[in-house]
């Protein structure tokens, strides 16, 4: 049992969204945002473990410099499919489509998202995209790298590029629909009294994410369609032999894919902004600065894409502009980190599992962010670009940041989603194992990168072996950290103690209804009279069961 959880015995509510009706139809045709969130939870977990298996095989292969385990072609497919799976089918939908889908209508006091059918459609589109990607994987795989750089992808490789690209385009549309839904919901469906200045930061960050999803994702679709046209019909766009320009592809690809980094991390920042005040029993420090830094990140995130191209032959002057803007986008992230840390100051801190993940997030995200400064420094990027330094940097953001935030969020809202608490001791153990395994896996890669080991190498020079073995050892620990929650969360569905409506004594509207919530979320439309995170005196919340 958690130290924060109330000790009184709770009983499950008689009717809730999970038992309102039964049968496969009631799930596959549901328009309930909570059920759709559960559908997403199951599907992205499947893709997470598929991507994880690829990662495990990569680390196994890299134990020896000669790369004896797999052929080079197989290795190239492994890292490609690991990247595509994790980015487009796990990270992008993770927090928004699972946690955001579940809690945002609850947080704004609404009965559902603005367009429930579009919400269901987004899941089906995601599944179609995922199916294409699975077909591409089982029918021979893809070896373009997740970046699909031309002219390699458009004219030189014989693998299932088009199938995979179609899958990614579908996944993109599913996130556009999710973003559209969030924006309209936040604008139009807030409960009485819930002004913009009172919105939970989870809502702010998902709102900022939705703006990026809507504006950037179409560019990805266009880029990949052009790639398909060149590959399928030899229409010269990117391949110089057909009169195209390969660097154009990089501009278009990163115009989406850099903002996509913020699609992946911003919702995670929202989760952290919920967890830290709750487990510090304190208002968030500098609410408006944290809220507006999300918007600043969303805006600046659109004008830094060419920092992926400092060695691709862009002009020195445009490189300078993009470097400068990259530092500008780093500042709002730093502001968030400082505010989270300050929130703990003079709090009443309890180290429950979500808080452990949040603290891990802050530390790892800080390192990930700071190493971004290395890569944005033009003269230094020349050396570390496309080495393991980059790999380590973005895994610190994506795994150390986003996956930690996602797991923190899953634990935080698990009682709300299922009505039951997970076993706290096992969960704490998993959080600590994940943290240790993560650092052991990825920290050595910074050093490997500075030593000069290029990324996407199926075999490497022997002097890199020691650090690679360390990294692989870490990965095996990390795997345990990821498998554990899969086990005890499933266990808790049946055997977990009943959570009650508000086990963390948190302030958001989502805690003012039963756990699990009824199909229409609230028996009475809530009225908001206070700012978000009104912890402290008078923080006890009355619950209308």
């Amino acid at each position, binding site marked *: 049992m958690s130290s*924060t959880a109330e000790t009184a015995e709770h009983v499950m509510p008689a009717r809730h969204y999970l038992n309102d009706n039964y049968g496969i139809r009631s799930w596959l045709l549901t328009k309930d945002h909570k059920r759709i969130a559960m559908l997403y939870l199951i599907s992205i977990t499947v893709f997470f473990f598929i991507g994880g298996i690829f990662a495990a095989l990569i680390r196994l292969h890299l134990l020896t410099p000669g790369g004896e385990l797999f052929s*080079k072609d197989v290795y190239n497919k492994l890292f490609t499919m690991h990247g595509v799976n994790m980015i487009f089918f796990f990270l992008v939908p993770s927090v928004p489509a699972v946690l955001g889908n579940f809690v945002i209508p609850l947080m704004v006091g609404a009965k559902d998202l603005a367009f429930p059918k579009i919400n269901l459609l987004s899941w089906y589109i995601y599944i179609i995209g995922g199916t294409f990607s699975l077909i591409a994987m089982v029918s021979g795989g893809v070896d373009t790298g997740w970046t699909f750089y031309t002219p390699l992808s458009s004219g030189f490789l014989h693998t299932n590029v088009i199938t995979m690209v179609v899958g990614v385009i579908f996944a993109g549309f599913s996130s556009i629909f999710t973003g559209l839904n969030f924006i309209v919901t936040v604008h139009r469906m807030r409960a009485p009294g819930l002004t913009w200045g009172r919105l939970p930061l989870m809502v702010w960050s998902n709102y900022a994410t939705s703006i990026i999803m809507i504006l950037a994702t179409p560019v990805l679709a266009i880029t990949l369609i052009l790639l398909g046209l060149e590959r399928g019909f030899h229409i010269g766009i990117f391949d110089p032999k057909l009169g195209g320009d390969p660097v154009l592809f990089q501009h278009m690809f990163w115009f989406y894919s850099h903002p996509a980094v913020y699609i992946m991390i911003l919702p995670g920042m929202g989760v952290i902004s919920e967890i830290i005040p709750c487990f510090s029993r*304190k208002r968030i420090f500098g*609410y408006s600065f944290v809220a507006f830094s999300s918007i600043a990140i969303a805006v600046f995130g659109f004008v830094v894409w060419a920092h992926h191209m400092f060695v691709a032959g862009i002009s020195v002057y445009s490189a300078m502009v993009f470097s400068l803007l990259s530092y500008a986008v780093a500042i709002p992230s730093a502001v968030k980190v400082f505010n989270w840390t300050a929130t*703990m100051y*003079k709090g009443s801190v309890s180290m429950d599992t979500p808080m452990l993940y949040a603290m891990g997030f802050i530390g790892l995200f800080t*390192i990930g962010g700071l190493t971004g400064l290395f890569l944005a420094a033009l003269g230094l990027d020349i*050396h570390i670009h*496309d080495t393991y330094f980059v790999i380590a940097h973005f895994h610190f953001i994506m795994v150390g940041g986003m996956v930690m935030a996602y797991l923190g969020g899953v634990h935080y809202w698990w009682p709300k989603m299922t009505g039951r608490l997970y076993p706290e001791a096992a969960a704490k153990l998993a959080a600590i194992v994940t943290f240790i395994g993560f650092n052991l896996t990825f920290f050595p890669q910074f050093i490997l990168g500075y030593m000069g080991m290029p990324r996407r190498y199926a075999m490497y020079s022997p002097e890199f072996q020691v650090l690679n073995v360390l990294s692989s050892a870490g990965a095996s620990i990390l795997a345990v950290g990821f498998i554990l929650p899969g086990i005890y969360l499933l266990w808790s569905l049946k055997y977990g103690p009943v959570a009650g409506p508000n086990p963390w004594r948190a302030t958001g509207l989502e805690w003012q209804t039963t756990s699990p919530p009824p199909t229409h979320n609230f028996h009475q439309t809530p009225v908001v009279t206070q700012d978000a995170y009104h912890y402290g005196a008078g923080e006890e919340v009355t619950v209308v069961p």
Partner: protein
Amino acid sequence: MAGQVDALYLFLVLISTFFSLLIAICIIYFAIRYRKTAGHSAEQIHGSTLLEIVWTVIPLGISMVIFVWGAWLYFHLERPPAHALEIYGEAKQWMWKFQYPAGQREINSLHVPTGQPVKVTLISDDVIHSFFVPAFRVKQDVLPNRYRMVWFEATTPGTYHLFCSQYCGTNHSAMIGEVTVMKPEDFAAWLESGKAEGSLASMGEKMFQQYGCTTCHRPDSGARGPNLEGLFGRPVRLQDNRVVLADENYIRESILDPNAKIVNGFQPIMPTFRGVINEDQMVQIVAYIKSMSQQTGEPLNNRSTPGQIRDTEVPNVQQQMQQDNQKQKPTGKQP
């Protein structure tokens, strides 16, 4: 340059360590000092505009220092000195080929002297590759449609890794080579021992005759094409009044896509040589056109090259390259 890149790296490591430790210590200290205990409750603090300004401005200031430092290094790395030794490199799936001004050729191996800047002009025959020598802290993507330059000055004799760092297909991780750094006298001896059938410029001149370039590109006033003497490194006014610099990329483009940039006062009558001239020959023609500027007093880089060996006969290096070409057919379809 390696030392200066490392200095910036160390500076960043110090900054990062400081801030990471600052945040980590604060979090751990707060978590213990303010842990939940009976009788203790949180003190509500809304925020502090002063603190927000402080922790916006200080990181901004530090990052501006990093930005200026990094940009200064980048400018340095992007501007090869005028007296650099010029080497031409070609990347293809999955090998590196280098040509020296005097005509020597190498595969997956690059010899350079200490104490002299070396400029490598790079082009790819197929997909994007990247020229990466970790020891020199240099990297440059090698594009299939235009020349890119990379330069470095080696200080310590030895052999160093040459990696392809841009993923380029099946044998990406095997597209590696060795950079051998030699003392200047050893390098001169190595160049002497290298067999070449003629300097790049002289081979380019032959090509220039062979393809009939001289029919139009003549020094007299009635010529149908611009006079190429003294062209290299000069600004050229185009028909649409734009002014472009006549550099390697301009010459390459004008040969492959003659109508892209029409020189003011001339007709677009030149045929394309796309598919006729390969990248090796292109480098030779470019070297010849460069050498035509040399005679007009234009400073030309490769004039200071040590060991200009001309017309040494022994073509076995080229034969070996042809064999290699046949062996290393790209697996992909070539549109």
